[in-house]
């Protein structure tokens, strides 16, 4: 990058005292390899300490600093300035209620997590447990989830519609237990009935924004959906249904 200054635009609002958002402009000196979080923190530490941001590890491992950078859900700590140019707009995740500036209220996630049945080991297994190394792999992909909520933010079902859909992050969590080789519970039916799994129409936006590159749609959501269909597929019941339908028509 030749420009040595970043033009940063940050959404500011305390919903308790301000009706709508305002975008404030800041100029931040550019440093090699800088990420968006560095720039936003520069503002906080040098220009306005009341700017609310949430961050912790600064290593893309804790999933705290989720925001929308030039409209795309991203981790601020993982987005290098030199990959997006020096005009940067940062706003909070829109799928969650705003607390202040770039900080949103993500506490609903805990309520949802609480609803999903936990890991429940099969009974009477000999200890210590033995697991085939290959069987660890399937669940391992989902274990990468850092619960950053970016997939929830990008999901149009979560974002724009009031449905019971738990959202991709929670389906990943459920899938990590469903695919645990020693787990004894099938969560797919529950996800379908209570978790609104059917509302997901597989646009794969969640997969695109996942900073851990989890194949959320292909490896978590679709297998859970397929499981539900398998469980509900009962050829005899379908045959009887079909005959009754015909009878109705004949009458």
């Amino acid at each position, binding site marked *: 990058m030749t420009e040595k200054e970043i033009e940063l635009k940050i959404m500011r609002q305390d919903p308790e005292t301000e009706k709508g958002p305002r975008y404030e402009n800041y100029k931040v000196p550019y440093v090699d390899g800088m990420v968006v979080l560095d720039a936003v923190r520069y503002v906080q530490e040098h220009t306005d*300490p009341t700017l609310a941001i949430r961050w*912790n590890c600064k*290593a893309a491992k804790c999933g705290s600093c989720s925001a929308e950078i030039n409209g795309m859900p991203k981790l601020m700590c993982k987005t290098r300035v030199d990959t997006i140019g020096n005009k940067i707009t940062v706003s909070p995740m829109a799928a969650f209620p705003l607390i202040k500036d770039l900080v949103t209220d993500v506490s609903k996630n805990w309520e949802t997590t609480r609803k999903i049945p936990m890991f429940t080991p099969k009974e009477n297994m000999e200890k210590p*447990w033995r697991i085939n*190394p290959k069987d660890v792999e399937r669940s*391992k992909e989902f274990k990468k989830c850092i619960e950053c909520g970016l997939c929830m933010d990008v999901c149009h079902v979560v974002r724009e519609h009031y449905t019971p859909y738990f959202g991709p992050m929670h389906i990943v969590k459920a899938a990590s237990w469903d695919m645990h080789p020693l787990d004894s519970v099938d969560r797919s039916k529950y996800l379908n009935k209570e978790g609104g799994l059917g509302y997901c129409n597989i646009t794969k936006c969640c997969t695109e924004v996942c900073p851990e590159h989890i194949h959320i749609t292909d490896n978590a959501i679709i297998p859970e959906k397929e499981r539900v269909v398998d469980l509900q597929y009962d050829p005899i019941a379908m045959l009887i249904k079909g005959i009754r339908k015909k009878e109705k028509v004949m009458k």
Partner: protein
Amino acid sequence: MPEDYETIESDVLVIGAGGAGLRAAIAINDSGQKVIVVSKSLLGKAHTVMAEGGVAASLGNVDPQDNWTVHYGDIIEEGVYISSWKMAEILAKEAPSRVLELESYGALFDRTPDGRIMQRAFGAHTYRRLAHLGDRTGLEIIKTLEHQVIHRDITFFDEMYITNLIKEGNRIVGAVGIKMNTGKIFLFNAKAFVIATGGSGRVFKITSNSWESTGDGIGMAYRAGVKLRDMEMIQFHPTGMVYPPGVRGLLVTEGVRGEGGILLNTKGERFMLRYSPEKKELDARDVVARANYREILEGRGTEHGGVYLDITHKGADFIKHKLPAMYQQFMEFAGVDITKEKMEVAPTVHYMMGGIEVEAETEKTNLDNLFAAGEVASGLHGANRLGGNSLSDILVFGKIAGENAARIAKNSDMIKISAEKVKKEIRYINSFFKEDGKNPYDLIDKLTTCMSDNVGIVRDAEHLKKALEIISELKKEFKEVGTKGMIKYNHGLLGCLELSNMLVSCEAITNCALMREESRGAHTRSDFPKKDKKWIRNIITELGEDGKMKFEVKPVDEMPSEYKNYVKPEVYS
């Protein structure tokens, strides 16, 4: 500014929601006592997520010769004989059960071909001992504990910043906190307390530590009259990222060396063969960190001030499978493909062996009902921590602290707290709101720069004294810091409060470093380059009655004679 607050009662209050705090909360819940957990960051985001390589436990799955006595010996030897032998024994004996217990909670670990928990080699562990899930073991542990807490009857308040403890006689009776996302002030009234707030790594400029590791627990405990121990013992991890500047200090897991990575200088020389011909790259962290430091100092480092770490010979498939997070980290932050290119690394502040002094069997502090566990506590690691022992530490001692806090709570009555005491604390918080206050971040920047420049990996009296002068000036300037705006999610306010705690850690670290006139483990003095027998001692720091920090040097507890068989005798040159 208003002075109203809300009171919340519980049997036990756990401050901190990393691995130690969450494991303590589970133990308290198991014992039937009502527990509340409060944390500075969001639930599940604590610094534990950063642990990569694994959790040390002598399961003996890969090397059947391993057992607790070998693990015990490793801890004492690498802690350079100033660890608490009792804590080392407890950890070595209990770590395997804690790992298996995690597995029963749903944690997954990589497996051996015959299906048992896989264990990898790590620096200065005699045998392959670290149970792991790729290089994301900390994440797996904290998520597992987090979901236990969510699914149990455990109340948590996250983004709750505890400013101070309230004391009555020799007991803690309450803790005052700011709920950051509402700006509301809470009083937590409880019968017993567990501090599990992690270390103070952020008092250094170059660190692998998270934002929240500002030593808040150490600050609040010190002010309440709690004794600290071995504060000079700061671990420098040999391999932090160097370039680009934005990621300087970010951790490169020891797992890279555990899986076969080698260190090279710019001459292409594998220099660890010179410094440690036997253990090479897998010697203890203090040895490797100093070797890297010297290579860089003596001009054999890269232009960005690092040495090379190379694992390309292992092949892309192996690296992507065994070290996926590292592959991703270098690719995305530095644009370096570690399957094809060497990494640039240099030492970074990583861990605090020092902290709150606790009783080995109960994790009780010198106060009757206050307990501490995890990085904030001290004793186990002595002068140097072995990789992987921090994760066993939080599980083993988190549980013990929780059980004992629950036991004390069961046999105690709740002591009511006068509103005036709480209001005094609230007035203290409000006092930082002023029109012309100094920016706390300017002072924090001066402080952290001072610590990295003067109290770093190699120390001497001149620099340490200089640091003490700067710290003392900053303590005066601290009186002028302030912020504007509202209390809700105000980082300016947080900066002021954190700074008060950071100053406590810095003053203790620097004074103890000046007192210890020898080089032992992570503490290296260029003016006292040798280890000195008369320093088989621990340095205790506490708040004196005159309001000044006072220090006491005391001998290390001697281990029973049969335990000496598990440990190589200490050698002095």
